Each structure stands twice: as structure tokens, then as C-alpha cells.
């Protein structure tokens, strides 16, 4: 079992969701985050105060998958989220020791396979 954590642009979320859907990845969790990377800082002004926004809006995907699904998941995200410009984000693959489905108590691969 692995946990795939991906940081992507907010405007790419729908594309990524669609790509994951096609890749038959059904379970995922997302959250709004802010990131800093190589993006050019954007300048804002409030009355006389000028500020550099170092952080950019991003969306974080967290997807628990069985080992065989890691590659397709990464591939789906990679192609759907890419614009080629700085700021496209990162994907991290983390090892997972155990997964449980709260509803049934099922474990590991069974826990992430959708029931028909």
C-alpha cells in the first residue's frame, strides 16, 4: 500500500479528477493548501503597503492505492496537471503500513477497492 500525495494547481483539479477517474482510481481526498516553489512571486498592494505573496494557492491530493496502482495514478496526475510552466507541483509516494475502511473494518487492499 502506498499513499500518493500530489500538489497541483487549483485550475487543474477538474482535469486531474477526470484523469484519475479514467485510471479507475476511485477514492481520494483533497484539500486546499498554499505552496512555495520556484514560482515568481506576485506583488499586491493594499493602500500604501506593498507585499509579495510568496505562497500560491494549490490543491493537495491524497490517494491511498495498492502497489500496482501507484504507477497509473502517478501517470494520470502527471499528465493531467502539467502545464509546463513553473509551479506545476510535486508528487510524493509514501509507504503505508496499514489501511482500514472505517465502515467495514476491511484492511489494506480491500479497504481501498470500491464496492460495486
Amino acid at each position, binding site marked *: 500500500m502506498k499513499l500518493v500525495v500530489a500538489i497541483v494547481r487549483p485550475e487543474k483539479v477538474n482535469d486531474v479528477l477526470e484523469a484519475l477517474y479514467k485510471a479507475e482510481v476511485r477514492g481520494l481526498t483533497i484539500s486546499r493548501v498554499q505552496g512555495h516553489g520556484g514560482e515568481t512571486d*506576485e506583488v499586491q498592494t493594499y493602500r500604501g503597503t506593498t507585499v509579495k505573496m510568496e*505562497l500560491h494557492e494549490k490543491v493537495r491530493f491524497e490517494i491511498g492505492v495498492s502497489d500496482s496502482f501507484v504507477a497509473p495514478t502517478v501517470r494520470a496526475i502527471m499528465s493531467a496537471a502539467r502545464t509546463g510552466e513553473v509551479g506545476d507541483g510535486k508528487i510524493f509516494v509514501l509507504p503505508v503500513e496499514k489501511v482500514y475502511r472505517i465502515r467495514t473494518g476491511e484492511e489494506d487492499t480491500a479497504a481501498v477497492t470500491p464496492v460495486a
Partner: protein
Amino acid sequence: MRNLRLLGALAVGAGSVALAQDPELSAADTAWMLVATGLVLLMTPALAFFYGGLVRSKSALNTMMMSFVALGFVGVAWALVGYSISLSPGGNDFIGDLRFAFLNGVSLENKGAVAAITIPHLLWMAFQGTFCIITAALVSGSIVERMRFPAYLLFMTLWSVAVYAPLAKWVWGGGFLADLGAWDFAGGTVVHINAGISGLVAALVLGTRKDFGRQAILPHNVPFVLLGAALLWFGWFGFNAGSAWGASQSASIAFVNTMLAPAAALVVWALLDLTRTGKVTAVGVATAIVVGLVVITPAAGYVSATSALLMGAIGAFPSYFAMLWRARSKLDDSLDVFAGHGIGGMTGAILTGVFGQKVIAGVEVGYFNGLLAGNPQQVLIQAFAVLIAVGYSALMTFILLKLVGVITPLRASAKDEATGMDVTQHGEEGYTSGEGAILVLESGEPRGKPAAAKS
């Protein structure tokens, strides 16, 4: 046949500034018109919230600003030239002259205006100005989330002079539509049809947002939409009942109709929602209020209270279904200015010809009889005025946008659109956490960051 509301003034001799039979200045009328003018001015910020709540949060400020800047740019343009072009008693049947340019000769007496008024001419000028401001702001709903702000500023200001002002002249300034006998109490044609058509054309010229039809674009703050609708309604009492230009029985019927028509529209819209999806939506209710107000606007002082209930109820249908259709179409009239104001305005203009009556609730406050009172011809006159407005508004908006487009690009880049208009056009965000913003000091060097590490 002339527009009777102006008759007192115009009979003496169109264009003559000093009018013998001018009525007396009335403190009571002035009291009401001071309030009414304030109320109409409030409608533009109200619209900013109505529109601003409907867009995504990354464009909330941009959308609101499109209305707010009208308060400045259009307001100033009105005082400098717009008023004179629209409502000077001089000029010809198509355009006023410049006698009132820079407010020259606009007095604190109730004299000199194109209409017979009982309030200071200057106050009347201001009241009329608030109409021009809100109309220009209304157009912006069609083109949110994609137009470069400087281009918008230029377009909106020119539009207020080149599109709004002449149309106001024709209908309210003793122009050729008034001569024809077309009636528009508070702006069905001049304001709503005009804004609706201009919005439609602007949406077509600008093109769709890049996400439009590809992903769901949802309102970021529905309570703001409700707030906007509520303040619009509140302000609209000034708009419609203020269009009687005094605290009269005419103002009273206009007021009551402005209360009842949206109420009826709300009921019908809610029931349509309930029937169609089983759920009464909040955005729907807010929309219904506005549509009901639009429909009654041209008729406010010309029809009975029962007719207002009917007009509100009937008027809900065309706009309701137009919006259903629009959402499925390829037309990105983003906030449905056409379906709401254009269609609603046309419905109202025609129904004014149907329901108009001279004697309302026992008093002769109306100015003409419509179809139901035995004058079917009025419907045709109304329809003709609609056509003229549609044609002029569409043509001129198209020309103006092309013109502005030559001076400066109309569309924001796809990247700016994706990032959000607030940040790219205004250098601000609507809602910030404040985290991660680095203060930039005079020297250009961000404070709190070691210069060394920077290089």
C-alpha cells in the same frame, strides 16, 4: 402623441428654458427625492454584491469593482456631458445639446429642466444620473472574469455617453420615442433592455471564459447574492417611486407595485423550482426578486396593484426558462444579464402596453390606457420602442467594443484568467489569510529577509 409627463413643460415650446407654468418648488417632494436619489445610488453597490457573490472567489473583487467604478467614472461623465446630451430641453428629437455641459445653468430652482418638476433642477439631474450609473454597471454582469480592467473602464465610460444618453433622450427627454407615445415609467427600455442587449453583445464579442462549459463555475458566496438582491429591492423603491419625481399618489402606486411584483415573481419562481427539481433555490429567489423588479419598472406608475401582481407572476416565466436555456447553450452571458434584464425588460415593456390604465385605484394617476383598457395599439408602440432600443444598443455596443479593442486589448490572458482576475487586474485578493505575505519596504527589499540569502 406626446409623452404626457413632459407635456406641461414641452407644450410651452420645446427647448425654451424659462417656463411660465412651472409648478412650485415643494419641500415634501424634495424630501422624498433626496431619499430616492440616495436609494438609487445604493443600487450600484448592491449590484456589486449581487454579481460579486455569483462569481468565483478569485474574481470577486474584479466583479464588484466593475460596478463600483461606475459610481465614479460614469457619475463624473454624467455631470460633465451625459446629462446635457440626454435631458437638455434643446437639441433635436435624437440628441440633446450641450447647454448643461459641466452643469452650467443647472439651477437650484425647479426651472429649466426638460420636464415639469417641483424639486431643484440640480437634484433632478443627480437623480437621473444615478440611473445612468446603475445601467452601465448592469452590463458588466455579462463579461465578468475575463475583461481587462483598463479596457472595461474605457468602455463603460464611453458607453454611458454614447449608448445610454441618447436612448434616455429618445424616451425621457422628449425625443422621438416619447413623441410616438411609447411609455417607460422608470426605465424598462432605457435601463434594462439597454443593459441586457449590451451585455449580450459584449458577451459575444468578448467570448466565453476559458473554463465555461468545461467545468462548473459556482457562486462563491450566496449570502452576498441575497444581500445584493435585498439592497437592490430597497433601492428600487427610489428607482420606481422616485420616478414620480415627488411624494405623490403616483409615487405611492409605483411604490406599492414595486413591492408586489417581485413578491409575485418570487412565489412563481419558487414554485417553478419546486416543481422542476423539488428544491427552492436561494440563487433562484434572489434572481426572481430582480426579475420581478425589472418587469414592473416600465409600468410602475401606470398599472394597478393587482396588475402588478400579475405582471410579476407572468414575468417570471420568460426569464426563468431563458436562464435554463442559456446555461445549456454556448453563450457565456455569465450572470444572465440578457435573460434577466433584457428578457425581463422586454416582457415588462410589452405588458406595460397591456395593463396600462389611466385611472388607477380610483385616481387618475396613469397617463394612457393599454390593451386591457381598450387601446390595443399601445402594445405595438411599446414593441416598436423595444425594437429601436434593441437595435441601437446592440449596434453601438459592438462598435464601442471594437473601438476600445483597437486602443487596448479587451481580454485578459488565459493565464491571468486562470490565476484569477483579482490578483492579476487589481493586485489584491478578496479574502486573505495574511500568511506567507512578505512586506516589501521602500528600498524594494522585503523586510525580514536577509539580503545575503536573497542573492
